[in-house]
């Protein structure tokens, strides 16, 4: 996904070389944020709903053990096979073994961020299984051999002309046709063939209900449903944190999910799968992959409340201007930046710094995850664990020393506005990134302190 091991800032810099594209990317996503605002404004109880959703999720995390057992029991009673996977690898192996048992070598898959997290497609590919992503956006990035750049809008970084060219190459559409309507129709035809011929369909899970043993899958395209209803086997993969206690709690989450994600009042299809249909085999894979460990952390547990709406992406001024791929992780954006270091601190040490801590993410989050506070806390953890550069460390130590000692601070200040040379956000190396596109602040002739002393001396 990030073969050159580039940091967010390097990848973002690359993204910013094409100003027009940055502007377009920013505006497109801001438009989605505005749709979210408009839709949320129509509910007088919006903030109450967020609070309730947050508290329900807090309850879930505090009683997850029992909810998991209750869910499993109810699902088993309805004839569903339940599997448990501690790691991504185990998850991939379970899915593979189910496919193998049915003697097939292809599968349709609707959107599942969990399978992205686990690298399922690559794994199955190595085992000779062909996976076809059926969400239009995911199919587009799959044809382009890229990961999604957004959890709800996977190909939001692609322009229609580029998609037209991609489809021309892969689906044989006429060259130069970039009409979204036409391209969508072409994809419909192309994917319909796969729906009709795949005996195994995999879906993600938006919510699962402990009380009823059912899982809920939300899509606009209907690709999850079409895949499942035409297949002999339905495999649903979910992180263990997706459980909610009761069916009635779905009302809170379904009211928030689509409104937060795209501004729609609800997704076109909110399908509740409680039992396999007659003759069908249904599997649910419950995946831990670090979640139980995260549960122990008072500072970072909260991130497990995420319902993957993507609202924090759309509102994030950094995401909008750096693109999803600059985050080099399955889940990008603000939420991705607090999840990724939990999986691999060394690889993702840059992500909590890819933020101004502006806090907009926290405000749009429908389950009230304290995203920007966690970004701040991750920074402390990363530095304490040595994931920082030596020069940054030295600079910070010097700054800490100078700023702790008023005498040194004042002396430094008098020798030509020390701060211009020392504050890390103004100067930190010989290439001075501040100056590249910004003028330096003008050095003032005296400090406020000397003005103040002077003025007080003259008896004012």
């Amino acid at each position, binding site marked *: 996904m990030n073969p050159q091991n580039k940091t967010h800032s390097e990848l973002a810099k690359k993204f910013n070389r094409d100003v027009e594209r940055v502007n377009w990317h920013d505006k497109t996503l801001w438009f989605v944020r505005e749709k979210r605002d408009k839709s949320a404004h129509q509910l007088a109880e919006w903030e*109450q709903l967020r609070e309730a959703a947050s508290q329900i999720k807090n*309850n879930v995390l505090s009683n997850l*053990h029992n909810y998991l057992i209750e869910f499993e029991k109810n699902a088993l009673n309805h004839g569903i096979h339940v599997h448990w996977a501690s790691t991504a690898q185990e998850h991939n192996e379970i899915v593979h073994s189910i496919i193998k048992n049915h003697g097939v070598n292809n599968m349709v898959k609707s959107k599942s961020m969990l399978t992205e997290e686990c690298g399922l497609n690559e794994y199955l590919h190595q085992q000779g299984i062909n996976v076809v992503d059926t969400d*239009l956006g995911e199919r587009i990035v799959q044809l382009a051999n890229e990961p999604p750049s957004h959890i709800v*809008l996977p190909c939001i970084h692609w322009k229609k002309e580029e998609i037209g060219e991609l489809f021309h190459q892969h689906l044989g559409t006429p060259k130069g046709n970039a009409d979204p309507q036409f391209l969508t129709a072409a994809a419909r035809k192309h994917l319909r063939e796969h729906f009709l011929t795949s005996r195994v369909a995999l879906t993600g899970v938006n919510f699962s209900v402990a009380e009823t043993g059912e899982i809920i899958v939300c899509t606009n395209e209907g690709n999850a449903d079409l895949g499942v*209803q*035409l297949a002999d086997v339905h495999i649903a993969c979910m992180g263990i944190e997706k459980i909610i206690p009761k069916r009635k709690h779905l009302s809170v989450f379904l*009211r928030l999910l689509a409104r937060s994600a795209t501004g729609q009042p609800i997704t*076109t299809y909110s399908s509740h799968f409680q039992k396999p249909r007659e003759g069908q085999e249904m599997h649910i894979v419950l995946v831990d992959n670090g979640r139980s*460990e995260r549960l122990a952390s008072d500072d970072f547990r909260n991130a497990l409340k995420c319902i993957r709406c993507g609202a924090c992406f759309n509102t994030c001024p950094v995401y909008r201007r750096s693109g999803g791929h600059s985050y080099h992780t399955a889940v990008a954006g603000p939420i991705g930046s607090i999840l990724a270091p939990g999986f691999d601190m060394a690889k993702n040490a840059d992500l909590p710094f890819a933020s101004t801590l502006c806090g907009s993410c926290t405000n749009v989050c429908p389950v009230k995850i304290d995203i920007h506070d966690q970004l701040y806390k991750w920074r402390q953890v990363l530095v304490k664990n040595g994931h920082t550069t030596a020069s940054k460390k030295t600079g910070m130590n010097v700054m800490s020393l100078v700023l702790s000692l008023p005498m040194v601070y004042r002396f430094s200040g008098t020798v030509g506005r020390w701060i211009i040379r020392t504050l890390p956000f103004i100067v930190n190396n010989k290439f001075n990134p501040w100056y590249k596109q910004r003028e330096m602040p003008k050095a003032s002739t005296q400090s406020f302190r000397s003005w103040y002393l002077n003025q007080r001396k003259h008896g004012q």
Partner: protein
Amino acid sequence: MGSREKILAAVKKNQPAMVEMPALNFAGSKAVDLKQQFIKTLTGIGGTVIEVNDWKEVSDHIKSTFPESGRIVNRVADLDFEISSLKSDPHDFSNVTVAIIQGEFGVAENGAIWLTDANMGDQALPYICEHLILIINKNSIVPTLHEAYDKIGSSTYSLGTFLAGPSKTADIEQSLVLGAHGSKSLIVFLMP
């Protein structure tokens, strides 16, 4: 120790002290005219809503909207269409032009209609058809999803779904296109 036990043990050990469940009381603004809100919302997300007085009107509408023969699969007894027999293989529906299904009830706030496998006959039907027709009673419309789930209660089903409008996507540059993979259109008839 298997993964199940390992995960459950880790969760039990690491989960924080019990946090109480909140009360679900939402003093939200509820629409005065549920039918009007339902129509407005569903129309806004690409559906068509037609108020009718009787079954005959529904039948006439369908006949005039889809005059070409095509394959119509009807699951509603009172209509002037034969009730289609359902074979066991859902792939048989791949050439269905119009599917007619009775919905359970509507939700005013989001234009969704609740239906289950019992309504569908075959679970692939509402997704595989080119055009979907749902019929609900206009008095069945509830204000929000909270009332909707009260109504669903603890009933069991193989598949239950809130269906709101035709299948759609905006994956290409946020341009809304109807008819992604599921039905290209949705017509909802409101019966008295």
